[in-house]
């Protein structure tokens, strides 16, 4: 964990000042910020820029949206993170990264980190990232196309809408590609629909959902769960009543 943290810091220093620090665009519920290990927790308010080397804790019922000139980030309860202009260290929980704007092409690639992994995200689009029990990370493409790269890697791995990749801890690379049902995902992900409406994001999500429907050749009554060890992840039976899932669409495809 320390090694990853150090890499995060190292990369951050090279990028400082290229884009503005994220500031609070929306918040709801209990969210606290701690500027140093021994520092006192303090409340944050709308419009505040997050100070460097601070860690943010999203408590129960929290909703937090940050924005700088080319990206926005959303967090919910159980998320703990540190962020700067071009990077996010997600200690726990999940986030939604939205960098669809043109400006992102001129900015540094976004560095997304979990306790045991770091991944570089290039491209325009939006994705969901979630810290796993293994210390790795799950990344799910929502819109646009990302190119993901590990710090030591040469090759890029593409992430398109509806695609899920596990970033395995301890430098073990990316997991196998898993396709997800976007209709089910988008209609149930609180990171998408429990925040103030973003009309342009809604339009993009509607587009990918419609685009995926005719491409689905097979559906499983299973959903992807946690990755608790570096090389495995869980598949769970899907509840029959899942919205948009097989339970409501008895005709298997």
């Amino acid at each position, binding site marked *: 964990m320390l090694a990853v943290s150090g890499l995060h810091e190292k990369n951050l220093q090279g990028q400082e000042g290229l884009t503005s620090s994220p500031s609070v665009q929306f918040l709801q519920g209990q969210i606290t910020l701690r500027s140093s290990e021994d520092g006192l927790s303090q409340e944050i308010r709308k419009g505040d820029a997050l100070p460097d080397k601070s860690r943010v804790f999203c408590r129960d019922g929290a909703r937090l949206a940050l924005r700088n000139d080319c990206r926005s980030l959303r967090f919910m309860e159980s998320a703990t993170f540190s962020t700067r202009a071009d990077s996010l260290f997600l200690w726990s*929980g999940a986030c939604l990264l939205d960098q669809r*704007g043109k400006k992102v092409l001129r900015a540094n690639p976004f560095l997304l980190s979990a306790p045991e992994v770091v991944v570089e995200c290039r491209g*325009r*689009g939006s994705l*969901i990232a*979630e810290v796993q029990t293994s210390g790795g990370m*799950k990344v799910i*493409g929502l*819109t*646009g*196309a990302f190119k993901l790269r590990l710090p030591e890697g040469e090759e890029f791995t*593409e992430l*398109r*809408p*509806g*695609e899920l990749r596990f970033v395995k801890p301890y430098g073990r690379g990316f*997991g*196998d590609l*898993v*396709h*997800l*049902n976007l209709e*089910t*995902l*988008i*209609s*149930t*992900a*609180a990171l*998408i629909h429990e925040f103030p409406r973003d009309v*342009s994001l809604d339009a*993009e999500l509607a*587009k*990918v959902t419609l*685009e*995926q*429907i*005719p*491409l*689905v*050749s*097979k*559906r*499983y009554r299973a*959903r*992807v*769960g946690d990755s*608790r060890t570096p*090389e*495995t*992840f*869980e*598949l*769970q*039976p899907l509840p029959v009543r*899942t*919205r948009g*899932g*097989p339970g409501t669409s008895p005709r298997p*495809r």
Partner: protein
Amino acid sequence: MELTLRFLNFLKGEAFCWSCPYLLRAFSSFAFIPATLFSGCGIGLDSFGTSNSSSKSAAEATGTIFKKDEQGDSKEGKQSQSSPTGVQEVVELDHSLSGKLLIEESERFRSVLQIDVKSYRSSNITRVESMGKSAAATEYTTIGRLEFPTSLDLLFFKTFTPSLTALGQRSYFGQYEIDSSDSTDEALRNLDYEFRSITLGGEGRSNSDWEINLSLEYDELLDFRSHDKLYHAIVSSASFGRDYSVFGGGILGFGIAAEYALTKIHQQYEVPGVFDDAGDNLRTALNLSLTQPLDSGGRFYLTPSASIMRTAYTKPTSTGRIDYLMHVELAAVYRIMPWLYLRSFTNYQDKTANEKAKALLFNYAEYNNWDAGLGLGVSLSF
């Protein structure tokens, strides 16, 4: 004459935006989006249990299936339908999605070519006050539109899209009968016309979602048999409007438009008062339209619309003449293919005028007319 009436006597140059705005927008979408949204249509879906996908399935991936009661205190046990990251249902796809953003589409040049053939019956083909004779008409319209990349945050606009639109339309009257009472008199050939226009415009959207359109347009009317120009006009226009979501997937559009036309008449059109060719004029209009999808697939639309327009002539001989035209239409559109559509319509026009107009146009100053017909169109985007 139906479409041209919209252009000249209804709202010049705004056929894209006003006469059936959402429909055309929808067609634009059909045209722009099909390659992405509907690209998968027609790709065979395998029956359950078989796969034509080359990508590795989730079942084949390194995974372990947990039953609910075996999950223990796994993080996944907390995943519910309202969890931050949602339900991640595994599927297989024929191929990956394009990953093309809508916003990227708007950042490039786009063009649309629309070709439309329409056959309709007009109850008062010569637009006279006492009910005139009915006749059939055929109308061929070609529209080419080039949209420039959308600018973001320009002045007070959230988005602004300039465009260049060219339109050509030819109408033939009395060639055949739709009803036995329809005239096929040779004299109706004199009504045949060709109309051309080219418009440089821009569509802006404010932060509060009001849409503002500005345009400069050149129009001309021709007798295509003799190649004589009958009339030309340079028209500057401004309009603003707003869309409201109604009845689930419906869009209610409201708009106000104003335009000023500098005109020059070369030769009088056969029927006076139909085209605004009697001198420079100021036109104002109020429009209301609804685009209501009737099926979940977005193939079938109902598009009622209503508008009222006032045209005040400013010079030279018609100064003081004011016309009012009310137009009510009900149209249904069926999209046979993403690029091919069938349209049926009926509309009613009621024109009234002031005393000056009556003195100038006599029997042609006021009229009412019903049109009803069918159209077939192609809309392609590049």
